[in-house]
C-alpha cells in the first residue's frame, strides 16, 4: 500500500527545489512547521504563490533565500505592518515579484480547476497592476459591445501546501469550511498537507465529513504536525502567538536579526 502519511521531512521532500508552491492565508491553515522544515533543508528557487495573501510564511521563505519569485496580493503581518524581509527584498530588487489582487489569484487557480486556459474578471482596468502584469490581458467582451474585460491566465502550481485539522490514513484530508484549500488542491499537480491528527477509518464514508474533505486522489503526502501553524492562528482552534510575532518583527527588521531568528526558532527546531 502506498504510504501517504509520512514523517514531516519526507512529506516536505515532495516539494523539490525549483517547484512552484501555492499556500493559503492566515485564516486558512498555514503549514508553518513544514515551512521551517523546508528552510532547514535549505530549499532553493521555489516559486511561491499566495492565495491570496501571506504573512510570516512568505516573509520567512524570502528572508531565508528559499524563493526565486513570489506572486501575491499582499505580504502583511496585519496591524504590525508589511513583512519586513518582503519589503527589504522588494526595495533592494532582490526578488522577482508579481503583484496581484486577491480575486485574480482565485480566478487563476479556478481556471486550472476547470482545465481552461484563463478566466475573465471584472474590475482591475485602470489599476497600475495592469502595467506591471504584462501576462494579464484586456479583451473586448465577445458577447457585448464596447465592454473591455480582464483575462487572467490559469496557474497550475506544482504543489499545494497547507495545514488542516485531520486526515485519515488513506490520505483524505478534512478542511471544514476553508474551501480555498479545495481550489488549491484541485488546481495543483500534488498536495502536501500537515494535520493536527490522523483519524481512524475513511472520512469519505461519513456524509457529515465527506463534503468538507479533499479526497486522497489529489493528495501526495500527509504529515502530522501538532500546532502546525504556530506561531500563526489556526481557525478558532488556537490563536496566534502575538508575543512571538512581535519578537519576529523586531528581529526581522534587520538582516542580522533575521539570522538570529532563524537560529533561535528554525534551525534549533524549537517546540511550540
Amino acid at each position, binding site marked *: 500500500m502506498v504510504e501517504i502519511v509520512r514523517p514531516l521531512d519526507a512529506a516536505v521532500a515532495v516539494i523539490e527545489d525549483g517547484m512552484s508552491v501555492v499556500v493559503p*492565508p492566515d485564516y486558512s491553515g498555514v503549514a508553518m512547521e513544514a515551512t521551517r522544515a523546508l528552510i532547514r533543508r535549505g530549499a532553493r528557487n521555489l516559486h511561491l504563490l499566495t492565495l*491570496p495573501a501571506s504573512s510570516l510564511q512568505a516573509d520567512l521563505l524570502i528572508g531565508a533565500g528559499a524563493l526565486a519569485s513570489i506572486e501575491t496580493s499582499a*505580504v502583511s503581518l496585519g496591524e504590525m505592518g508589511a513583512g519586513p524581509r518582503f*519589503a527589504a527584498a522588494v526595495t533592494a530588487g532582490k526578488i522577482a515579484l508579481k503583484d496581484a*489582487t486577491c480575486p*485574480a489569484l482565485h480566478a487563476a487557480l479556478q481556471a486550472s480547476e476547470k482545465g481552461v486556459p484563463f478566466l475573465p474578471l471584472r474590475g482591475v*482596468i485602470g489599476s*497600475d*497592476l495592469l502595467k506591471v502584469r504584462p501576462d494579464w490581458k484586456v479583451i473586448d467582451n465577445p458577447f457585448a459591445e464596447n465592454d473591455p474585460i480582464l483575462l487572467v491566465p490559469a496557474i497550475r502550481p506544482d504543489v499545494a501546501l497547507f495545514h488542516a485539522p485531520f486526515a485519515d490514513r488513506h490520505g483524505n484530508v478534512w478542511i471544514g469550511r476553508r*474551501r480555498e484549500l479545495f481550489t488549491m488542491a484541485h488546481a495543483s499537480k500534488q498536495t502536501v498537507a500537515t494535520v493536527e491528527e490522523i483519524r481512524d477509518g475513511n472520512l469519505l464514508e461519513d456524509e457529515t465529513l465527506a463534503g468538507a474533505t479533499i479526497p486522497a486522489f489529489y493528495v501526495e503526502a500527509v504529515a502530522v504536525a501538532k500546532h502546525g501553524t504556530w506561531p500563526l492562528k489556526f481557525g478558532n482552534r488556537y490563536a496566534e502567538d502575538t508575543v512571538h510575532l512581535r519578537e519576529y518583527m523586531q528581529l526581522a527588521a534587520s538582516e542580522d536579526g533575521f539570522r538570529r531568528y532563524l537560529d533561535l526558532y528554525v534551525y534549533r527546531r524549537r517546540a511550540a
Partner: protein
Amino acid sequence: MSEAVIKPEEILIGVVLRLIEGAKHVAVGANSPMPAAAAFLAQRLGGGRPHVSLQQSPKHNLFTDGGRELFDAAGQGRIDVFFLSGAQIDGHGNINLVAIGDYAKPKVRFPGSFGSAYLYFVVPRVILFRTEHSRRTLVPKVDFVSAPGVSPPNVYRRGGPIALVTPFCHFAFDKARARFRLESVHPGHTVEEVLDNTGFDFERPAAAPVTPLPSPEVLRLLRETIAPELAALYPHFAERVFGLRPAAAE
C-alpha cells in the same frame, strides 16, 4: 464614561453609521475596528440587518465557500458596503497600497493591493477610511494606482468611493467631477487644519458644517452592547477607546 465626553473614535463611528444606512450586507476587512463597530451598530438598530461579515472571525464570517466567496458575492452585487484605505489616497480617489517612489525601485514597500483593484469597482458604496490625515497620506497624485477612483464610461463599474473619513473630517466623493468635497469637519477641528494637512485640492462650501454627533441612543448602544462584542475581535481598540479589559477569546 459620561455622554458629555464623546471620544473622537465615537464621532467617526457615527459618520460611518450614517454612510452605511440602508445597506443589506456590509463586509469589513481585517484591522477595521471603527467600521466594524458602525456595522454592528447598524445591525442592532436595524433588527438584524444589514448582514455583517468579517472574514477573519469564525463567528462573523458568513462565507462557507472559501476566500473567493466574498469576491464572487461582491461581483454579483450582494455586498453593498466595503471599506478600503491606502498608504496614499489622492484627490481623484485613487488609492495606493503598493509602494512609495518608482515601482521598480521603491523607497518604501507596503504589503500590496489585496482585493482593492476589484472590490473598488463592484461594491456600490466603498468608504475610504484613513486614520492619519496628513500631506504624506492625502496626496495630489498617488505613486502607484492600486485601484482607480473613477473609470471611463465603457468600463464596467457598479461602485466606487462614496466618502473619505479621517480623524479631522468627512469628505464626500463627487464621482462626476472625480473630486472630494468637504462634507463636515469634526468637533474640535477646523477647516484650516484640514487645508493645512491635505495634499490635494477639494471642493468646500463657504462654511463647512460641523460633523453631527452620534445620538444618545446610539452612544449608549455603542458603549454598552457593541463595545463588549468588539473586545473579542479588536482587544487593543476596545481597551483604548472603551476602557474594556481584554476578554476571553470568543
